């Protein structure tokens, strides 16, 4: 008989129960051991933290402990054979061991009972063994096999350890539980602080030798920075990690840093006194050290913490308020963006009817903190139409990753888009306002006596009030163009006027502000003379500006009048023709109404003309035409149609005559301009030829001197070198003076020194030109001495707060003058050593050339008249060409006198000077002509025409002092960028834009 499955199941259940208990006991024991270990570890951590061991160290130790514990646990489980304990055979063996009487029956039943029946075993025996085993196991209690004591021991240990930890931990500043919390992220300091006794005396902890180390967030692009000997103030952008190191006066156990009541952050304390904490800058507030000693905490004073947040970019425009922008002209709004950490994008935002569109201006490849440019898109390219009034602002976005990019906006600019005619009207109105302001200032200057007052203090006061005469001019320019100066004709005129007046006021303030001695308050004659000259120069500039503006306004007005007169005459002709074929009086009246409206416009155009004769002529013609129209209407109302027709013919005839007259006038003006242009061109050629011939004569004289002795050649070389240096010296001294502008920020006597230095510079140049070695040496010596003294004055003025503008440049120019003078002094010494005696043959040869010099003089006189005439015909000219030509005549005369005296060296110098002056006259004329072209361009704009010969866009008159170079990010590669630039530069530009092109090249080279 085979053992029944019931036997087997009963045995198995029993054994499994044993297995479970075995394992349960093992788990409890393990848990108790872990608990004990954990408690011990917590106590250790608490001890460490309480002793001020850094959390990191404690944490690391804890981590090691955990790892060790885990390993030990696994080992322990292995030792205690967790796996086999689940096997029934293992349990059966334990039962067999407990009940030796079983004598292997249980094992046998387990091993054979469930196997396939075999012949090897006796079934009855097996049955009996099974019965026996079953009865036996019924007698065994599981506790007997696996006693509970196996778990109670570890539990006891755990309790003991726990008790110990509790007792010890309770006495620690950081208890075991707190230590665990700290290890899991809580602040040890806060724990200590909660139970600590705060020192009676607040801020008692003395800390010093504070040093800060900033580690900035990556977006700022800033390098880490250390600040030794800090006063504790932290200033940093958000996200910055600041490591604070300090030394305490007394030793402590632990340190933490507290920021404005937030949970303290633990620091480290080396040697009980060297504290090091780290904080992350988030908000502005204050911070302090918490220093722990046992359960006592001492605080340091509070230190400031200022968040230097990445402020939005600051965007500034060159214009403000309202501007009028022509349809096809670049806006020309200069913009400048400044950000503390970098700009990623600049765009132009245009708001029209509450709908904003954005046009990217720049998206730089790097992240510059300063970026500027000119918004050169035209209203048309922005999708605007004539008549639109939009709000425009420049928007910049920075690279702040905390906030996701701050947005900085400029002030909104109201832009009224004008069509060509609208812009023309706007420009005309601007010039009219400017003319009024200029004339008022001119009248003030003209009406006052020179000098306006008689005492020094009164003159100084006068300078203060007279300067206000230009306030309206400045205001008008600002209203039209914003802060930046106009690059158009008006900008040029205003700049000249202001420069001249600045010289006058500067001189007045510096000259008459000086202390007076016994001489009293009366200004000296020399100063008054200079004052008079500067006053006159201001008047001349005002006159030129006023005249140019008036010429533009008048010519444009006459042109407009002529155009309208023709239109009106044509309308009158149409009306007269229609009158012949219609009997409809109402139709004719309607025609007359239209004509009347046109005549009113014509009358208005005439009333705007500041030309009495032409205005009277127009008005009288219109009066007559108006009277005739009244009669026509009367005839029409009385049904006298034939009379009306005849009168309409008469009206058409009258208006045709009027239009013809104006057109002929225009044509004559145009013919005269053409003729003057031809004369100008011929004059340019003549002046070139004259200066070339004078140069050739000087060269010939120089060659002659070479022929008559090599020593002359040496001297000539020295003089040539001196020529160049003298020019440079004059330029440097002049620049030093001019850089003082209107004298603000400079002490009067410094200005006087600079004036005198400039005069000396000019004197040196004259002496060199005259080949006056002695005079040159004398003056060069004076320059050396004066420049030294002046440099000291300039230096001291620069040191005085707030310091003058351009002080550095003034200093540099003065120093340059010194250097040049020193160089000249060396050459003069060499000149002194070079033999320079003439000989009779050379003197005779020199005299022989005087006749040809005389011929050149005759030619110069002829050209002088032409220069005067041509210059007079150019409204923008101010007489400089004539003056230069007069001086050239003087130099030629002096050269001739030297030639007649046989003095070749001096003659040659004056010949070269004359040649230079002739060229100067030519340049003045060319410049005036260029300015006139600017003036004509402005006139075309006033008439609403597009500038340029081929209908290009109107040149922008808005500020455009810097050439605009395309942004690098617009090109795929640097090569493409370079190519595009070179291609652009290779193009021809009108003569008046040559200087702009040159600046473009210069900027490109710098880029």
């Amino acid at each position, binding site marked *: 008989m085979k053992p029944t499955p019931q036997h087997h199941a009963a045995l198995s259940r029993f054994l499994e129960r044993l297995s479970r208990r075995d394992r349960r006991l093992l788990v409890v024991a393990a848990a108790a051991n872990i608990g004990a270990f954990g408690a011990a570890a917590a106590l250790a951590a608490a001890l460490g933290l309480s002793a001020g061991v850094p959390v990191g160290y404690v944490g690391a130790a804890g981590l090691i402990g955990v790892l060790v514990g885990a390993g030990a646990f696994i080992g322990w489980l292995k030792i205690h054979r967790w796996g086999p304990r689940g096997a029934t055979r293992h349990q059966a063996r334990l039962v067999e061991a407990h009940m030796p009487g079983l004598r292997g029956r249980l094992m046998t039943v387990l091993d054979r009972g469930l196997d396939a029946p075999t012949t090897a075993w006796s079934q009855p025996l097996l049955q009996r063994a099974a019965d026996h085993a079953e009865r036996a196991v019924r007698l065994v209690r599981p506790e007997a096999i696996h006693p509970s004591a196996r778990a109670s021991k570890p539990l006891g240990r755990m309790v003991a350890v726990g008790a110990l930890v509790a007792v010890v931990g309770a006495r620690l500043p950081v208890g075991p539980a707190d230590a665990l919390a700290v290890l899991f992220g809580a602040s040890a300091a806060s724990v200590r602080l909660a139970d600590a006794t705060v020192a009676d005396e607040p801020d008692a902890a003395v800390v010093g030798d504070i040093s800060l180390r900033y580690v900035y967030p990556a977006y700022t692009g800033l390098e880490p920075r250390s600040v030794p000997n800090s006063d504790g103030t932290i200033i940093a952008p958000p996200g910055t990690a600041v490591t604070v190191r300090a030394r305490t006066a007394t030793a402590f156990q632990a340190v933490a840093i507290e920021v404005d009541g937030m949970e303290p952050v633990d620091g480290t304390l080396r040697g009980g006194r060297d504290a090091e904490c780290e904080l992350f800058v988030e908000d502005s507030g204050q911070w302090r050290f918490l220093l722990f000693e046992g359960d006592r905490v001492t605080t340091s004073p509070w230190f400031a913490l200022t968040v230097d947040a990445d402020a939005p970019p600051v965007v500034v425009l060159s214009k403000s308020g309202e501007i009028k922008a022509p349809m096809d002209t670049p806006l020309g709004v200069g913009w400048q963006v400044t950000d503390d950490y970098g700009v990623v994008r600049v765009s132009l935002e245009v708001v029209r009817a509450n709908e904003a569109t954005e046009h990217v201006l720049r998206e730089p490849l790097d992240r510059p903190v300063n970026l500027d440019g000119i918004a050169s898109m035209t209203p048309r390219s922005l999708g605007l139409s004539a008549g639109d009034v939009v709000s425009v602002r420049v928007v910049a976005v920075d690279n702040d990753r905390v906030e996701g990019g701050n947005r900085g906006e400029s002030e909104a600019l109201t832009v009224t888009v004008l069509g060509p005619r609208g812009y023309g009207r706007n420009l005309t109105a601007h010039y009219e306002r400017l*003319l*009024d302001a200029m*004339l*008022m200032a*001119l*009248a*003030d200057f*003209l*009406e006052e006596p020179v000098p306006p007052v008689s005492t020094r203090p009164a003159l100084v006061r006068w300078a203060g009030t007279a300067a206000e005469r230009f306030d309206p001019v400045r205001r008008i320019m600002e209203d039209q163009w914003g802060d930046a100066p106009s690059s158009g004709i008006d900008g040029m005129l205003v700049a000249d006027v202001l420069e001249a007046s600045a010289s006058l006021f500067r001189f007045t303030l510096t000259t008459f502000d000086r202390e007076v001695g016994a001489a009293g308050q009366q200004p000296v004659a020399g100063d008054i003379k200079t004052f008079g000259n500067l006053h006159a120069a201001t008047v001349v500039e005002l*006159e030129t500006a*006023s*005249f140019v503006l*008036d010429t533009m306004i008048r010519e444009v007005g006459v042109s407009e009048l002529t155009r309208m007169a023709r239109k009106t005459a044509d309308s009158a002709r149409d009306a007269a023709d229609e009158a012949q074929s219609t009997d409809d009086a109402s139709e004719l009246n309607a025609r007359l109404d239209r004509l009347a409206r046109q005549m009113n416009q014509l009358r208005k155009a005439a009333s705007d003309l*500041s*030309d*009495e*004769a*032409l205005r*009277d*002529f127009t008005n*009288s013609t219109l*009066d*007559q*035409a*108006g*009277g*005739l*129209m*009244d*009669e*026509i209407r009367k*005839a029409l109302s009385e049904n*006298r149609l034939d*009379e009306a027709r*005849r*009168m309409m*013919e*008469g*009206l058409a*005839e*009258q208006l045709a*005559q*009027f239009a*013809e*007259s*104006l057109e*002929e*006038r225009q044509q*004559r003006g145009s013919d005269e301009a053409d003729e003057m242009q031809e004369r100008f061109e011929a004059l340019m050629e003549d002046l070139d030829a004259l200066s070339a011939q004078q140069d050739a004569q000087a060269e010939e004289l120089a060659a002659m001197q070479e022929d008559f002795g090599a020593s002359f050649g040496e001297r000539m070389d020295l003089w040539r070198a001196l020529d160049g240096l003298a020019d440079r010296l004059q330029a440097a001294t002049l620049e030093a003076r001019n850089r003082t502008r209107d004298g603000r920020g400079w002490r009067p006597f410094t200005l006087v020194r600079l004036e005198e230095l400039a005069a000396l510079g000019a004197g040196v140049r004259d002496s060199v030109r005259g080949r006056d070695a002695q005079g040159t040496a004398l003056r060069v010596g004076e320059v050396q001495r004066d420049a030294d003294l002046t440099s000291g004055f300039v230096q001291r003025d620069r040191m005085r707060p707030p310091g003058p503008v351009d002080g550095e440049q003034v200093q540099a120019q003065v120093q340059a003058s010194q250097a040049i003078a020193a160089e000249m002094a060396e050459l003069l010494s060499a000149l002194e050593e070079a033999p320079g005696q003439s000989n009779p043959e050379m003197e005779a040869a020199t005299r022989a050339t005087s006749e040809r010099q005389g011929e050149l003089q005759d030619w110069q006189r002829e050209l002088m008249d032409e220069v005067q*005439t041509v210059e*007079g*015909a150019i*409204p923008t000219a101010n*007489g400089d060409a004539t003056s230069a030509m007069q001086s050239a005549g003087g130099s030629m005369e002096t050269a001739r006198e030297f030639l007649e005296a046989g003095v070749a060296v001096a003659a040659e110098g004056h010949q070269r000077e004359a040649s230079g002056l002739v060229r100067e006259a030519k340049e003045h004329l060319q410049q005036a002509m260029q300015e006139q072209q600017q003036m004509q361009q402005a006139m075309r704009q006033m008439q609403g025409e597009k500038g340029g010969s081929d209908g290009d866009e109107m040149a922008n008159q808005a500020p455009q002092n810097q050439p605009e170079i395309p942004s690098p990010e617009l090109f795929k590669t640097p090569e493409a960028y370079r190519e595009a630039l070179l291609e652009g530069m290779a193009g021809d530009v009108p003569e008046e834009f040559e200087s702009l092109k040159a600046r473009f090249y210069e900027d490109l080279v710098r880029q």
Partner: protein
Amino acid sequence: MKIWFASSVWLMMATSALGARAREGLACLEVGDLQCAIEVRDRISASGERSEAAQVLRLRTLFREGRYAEAVAVLDEMEAAGLESAQRETNPYRGSHAASRGKVESTRDGVRVRYANGIEAVLREEALEVMERSRAVYDPLFGGGPDHTVLLDIFPTAYRFTQASGLPPEAVRTTGVVALSKWSRLLISSPRSKARGYGWKDTVAHEYIHLVVSWRSADRTPVWLQEGLAKLLESRWRTGQDSVLTVHQQTLLRGALENNAFVPFEKFKHSMAYLDSGDEAALAFAQVATLVQHVLERAGDGVLAVAMDRIRDGEAAEPVMASLAGYPDFDALMAGWADWLATQALDSAAVASLPVVLDADADDFKTDPLLATDASKMRAARLGDLLLERDRPLAALIEFRKAGEGDGPASPLLLAREAQCLAELDRVDEALAVSSNGVQLYPEFTPLLKTRGALYDRIGQPAKAAEAWSAAHELNPFDAAVQQALIANYAALGNTSKADRHRAILRILQTGGAAEVAR
């Protein structure tokens, strides 16, 4: 006349019957006898003759009569017929026709005035008056006048005058010719054609003198004598006195006398219009006028008719004038004239001819002899104007005086402006003195007269004001302000007839001559 008659008869006898009559008419025209030519033409027309000579005669007589449209029709006809003489015609037929569009005509005893319809009507009455009085004064003086109605053709613009005169525009612009006596009629530009007007009435008389002299001498009087007579006698129609040389002319004459730099007669033997400059023309006029004056002073007005007869009869003008003046020959006359001239009190002042400024070339400064040529002075003057407009008379005065500084002739415009500024500054006496000096130097500069009139108005002296305004009116009757001032002043003086007359002119100006147009 005798010579003309003899030649006519000879022509009639020597040529064929058909061509002879036409050529007779042409010969009449050659000697300036328009009436004769008209009679011949009419006879030929009645006979139906269509010869080429007859066509030419028709063409030329119609043109001389001022019947431009008909003349152009004849010319077209000749051209269409391929007549060679049509190509040879140089008279400005078509130009005259174009320049005369829209004109109307007014006729009185022996005179016709043709003017542009509309406001040019302001000239009508005074033009007729000048013509009538000229005929009354000069015909007897020269021993007779044209036997046809004399046409005065007034052109509203210089452009149209140039068109009608056939003169080169450059010549007109250089010398400022505004009137011509040619083709048996008088052609003048309206005073409106010059920026400031001009002494148009004396000019009409001047041209009429040319016509009479030409007619009386069978067009044989040389230019120097023509111009001398016309210049000297041009004001007799209104004053009964010979013309007085202007300060400018006296200055030029004095300079020429001192430097023996007279304009050679040869230089203007064809026309004064071709002289180099206004100054040269002014000197030439002064020379010949004083020469004639010298002759008349020695021989009396009665010699004029005799001279005309002798010249017409073939004697050269120079010996005729010399003998009439009691000199053995012309050289002696010239020497005597020079001696006589040296005894005359000739003024000397820095004055110059007024520049020629035509039509609407009304830029103030181009009418001024100083400012028109010196851009820097013009610039200062312009600034003065701008300042004066802005009520800154003192500053303006400084600019005007600055403009007047230095070399060059006195500037009439600157004198006028200076007077204006002084008046604005309540320095009226100074202003009057300045304007008085200006008027003396430049009597034909209208702004000075207007300024003077305004100054008298300001101080309440209507008689003197009327005098000044009237002088301005004589130069430029188209200025409504002048008319208004005259109306006010004549009304104040109780001279209602003159006030009414100017009121009528003002009415024309204000209505654009509507009444005239409607006619």
